[in-house]
């Protein structure tokens, strides 16, 4: 029986923002001088888990990968759905740390401990995901998490003939040409905004859903 090895090519999907200081100044919001660069690093290291061969070694590989990543996540590298804690229980500690901040209480979206689940869509992906923004403290952490979540949307090889998975050729060309994806979000007023302009906390407060658009479609937002 031929074991199917799911190798992933080194693929790097860059989400570059046009963010320059001048743009921020025009908006009159509190300017953020750094260009936030949401990189979806889709290297085989980070994806790690070979599904045909699950044993302790591989779990170590996952753990090691997370330690190796360039931007160390504030929380431990997470396996999806582990530990098995329901979303409304996840942020107890975070809430406590912030003190009895009345804003936290007011935000109270789903569940009492202030989780903030928003839908994430990536153009070209067959389905949406949900991510809890309160799990992260910076844009970088969110970008890492999204990268892991959508890491299956890369070229993958099955058996030695190199059969590509569902990605058709044109999408493949996009990836190969490194076309930019642009992260956008819908805010409380229903407007679509570029991710990265405002301070992280303000973003979490106002973000209702995320959409990672293909650069060509995002022109109107710049």
């Amino acid at each position, binding site marked *: 029986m031929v074991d*199917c090895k*799911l190798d992933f090519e080194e693929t790097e999907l860059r989400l570059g923002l046009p963010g320059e200081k001048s743009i921020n100044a025009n908006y009159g919001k509190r300017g953020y001088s750094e260009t936030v660069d949401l990189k979806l690093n889709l290297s085989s290291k980070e994806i790690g888990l070979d*599904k045909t061969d*699950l044993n*302790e070694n591989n779990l170590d590989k996952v753990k090691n990968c997370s330690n190796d990543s360039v931007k160390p996540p504030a929380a431990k590298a997470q396996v999806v759905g582990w530990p098995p804690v329901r*979303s409304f229980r996840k942020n107890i500690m975070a809430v406590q740390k912030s003190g009895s901040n009345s804003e936290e209480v007011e*935000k*109270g979206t789903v569940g009492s401990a202030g989780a903030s689940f928003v839908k994430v869509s990536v153009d070209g992906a067959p*389905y949406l995901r949900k991510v809890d923004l309160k799990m992260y403290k910076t844009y970088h952490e969110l970008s890492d998490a999204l990268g892991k979540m959508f890491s299956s949307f890369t070229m993958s090889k099955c058996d030695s003939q190199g059969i590509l998975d569902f990605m058709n050729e044109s999408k493949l060309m996009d990836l190969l040409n490194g076309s930019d994806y642009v992260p956008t979000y819908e805010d409380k007023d229903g407007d679509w905004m570029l991710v990265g302009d405002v301070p992280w906390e303000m973003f979490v407060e106002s973000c209702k859903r995320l959409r990672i658009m293909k650069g060509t479609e995002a022109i109107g937002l710049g």
Partner: protein
Amino acid sequence: MAYSFPEEVLEHVFSFLCSDKDRNAVSLVCKSWYEIERWCRRRIFIGNCYSVTPDIVIRRFPKVRAMEMKGKPHFADFNLVPEGWGAYVYPWISAMSVAYPWLEEIKLKRMVVTDECLELISKSFKSFKVLVLSSCEGFTTDGLASIAANCRNLRELDLKESEVEDLSGHWLSHFPDHCTSLVSLNMSCLGSEVSFSALERLVGRCPNLKTLRLNRAVPLEKLPNLLSRAPQLVELGTGTYSSEFRVDIFSNLSEAFSVCKQLKGLSGLWDAIPAYLPAMYSVCPGLTSLNLSYATIQSPDLSKLVSQCPNLQRLWVLDYIEDSGLEALATSCKDLQELRVFPSDPFGAEPNVSLTEQGLVTVSEGCPKLQSVLYFCRQMSNAALVTIAKNRPNMIRFRLCIIEPQAPDYVTLEPLDTGFGAIVKSCKELRRLSLSGLLTDQVFEYIGTHAKKLEMLSIAFAGDSDLGLHHVLSGCESLRKLEIRDCPFGDKALLANAAKLETMRSLWMSSCSVSYGACKLLGQKMPRLNVEVIDERGPPESRPESCPVEKLYIYRTVAGRRIDMPDFIWTMDEDSALQHS
């Protein structure tokens, strides 16, 4: 010559049968009993909404008054089931709105409920009384407004941990002034503030209100207003239990609690601060159920609190209680039956509290009636588990979550096979078990050999080979639900035990080693099972047959294949096998 009782007599006798098992048995006796029973069955429970269709149910049971149904697999609670998977209740509501105009109760768990559904419920069922939505999603507070406005005899509205799109708190104000029938209201999962005066008036005019669970937005200083209007409450969920400390707030609160002489259950307590805890001391001796899982208070205060509750039967608490608090619990609460300890910092790399296996051991020693445990911790040993097993042979639910996957016995560095083995050997009535830590195929041999009453088993990051799964499927006679993630279980055990799957409600396997080919084979051979492959990488036939599927959900059904699947789920059956061979 056969004499038989008139139908009416039999019907009367059957009306004393409440359990589905009994009624199902009765219906198998003979054709006439089957007929009589089906016309007088008033309650139905459907454990898997895809196991049967609305038409089949309605055809057999034409006079149902109460229905209870579950949808998504349990692992949906932990984000393992992709968005859009299914479990839409609308087709059921639509069919029942025509067939069961006298429907009084709907209880749903892990289902997608829309505002449209809620509106249809509120308009179709004139005697509607009870709506319980547990871990459901898909609706907004507008849907709740329809229920409040139109259900004239509403007794129970319970939103237990559902994900509600909270547009505003205005829905509560839709309860008409003449609504006095409420017995139970649980809005604890909602974020928005409701009109307090509307809430006050509602509570004041419902003399039979026994359960009131507020949401976090209800401020502490207003709680006495509600308690004074409902001193008959049996279950209370407070709103936020925090406020700048003021003596007048404290004394109002204290006085309000002291009037609630029937209070048996207390929950909510968000952001609880120690200064306000003594205000509830007067109700503590009467409490049988206490949910402190949102209260971020520390061990000394927790210890003091639980020591005031000698009649406690159920405690849910954060791991802030620590081993020392659990010792206090073991000393004071001899009637304790259920303990759940949740992690305050599940993703932290280092332990933030001093809660170890010792806490659980102490409670297992001190509380002779302890039978139900959910315990999150960071270290465990075989010795501790063996002790717990010896102390508590009466355990029926044992769910242990050691936070680090595949963590070994921290003392000996061995797998925890022996410890869990002791649990299943000793606890002969064990019905539910969740495993964690480092485990080999050996633990599954123990489980298959001894866990004869086990109905639900949850496995993660465990086992070495197919043999593990084989032990479970071939040995656990009472198994109904099996959920597995990240285990090296593959084709052999599944195919060898295919017939077993028809005796179970469902099997979930994700990130295991079951190949697409095996799924197809299983689907082909077992027409009474739905074998559903969930794969987010695209159609499984675009990969070799030997390629493992991402997620697999298998369940028995008389409904045939699903017709409402999203495009990342494929049913394996004869048709698909033919198409793709």
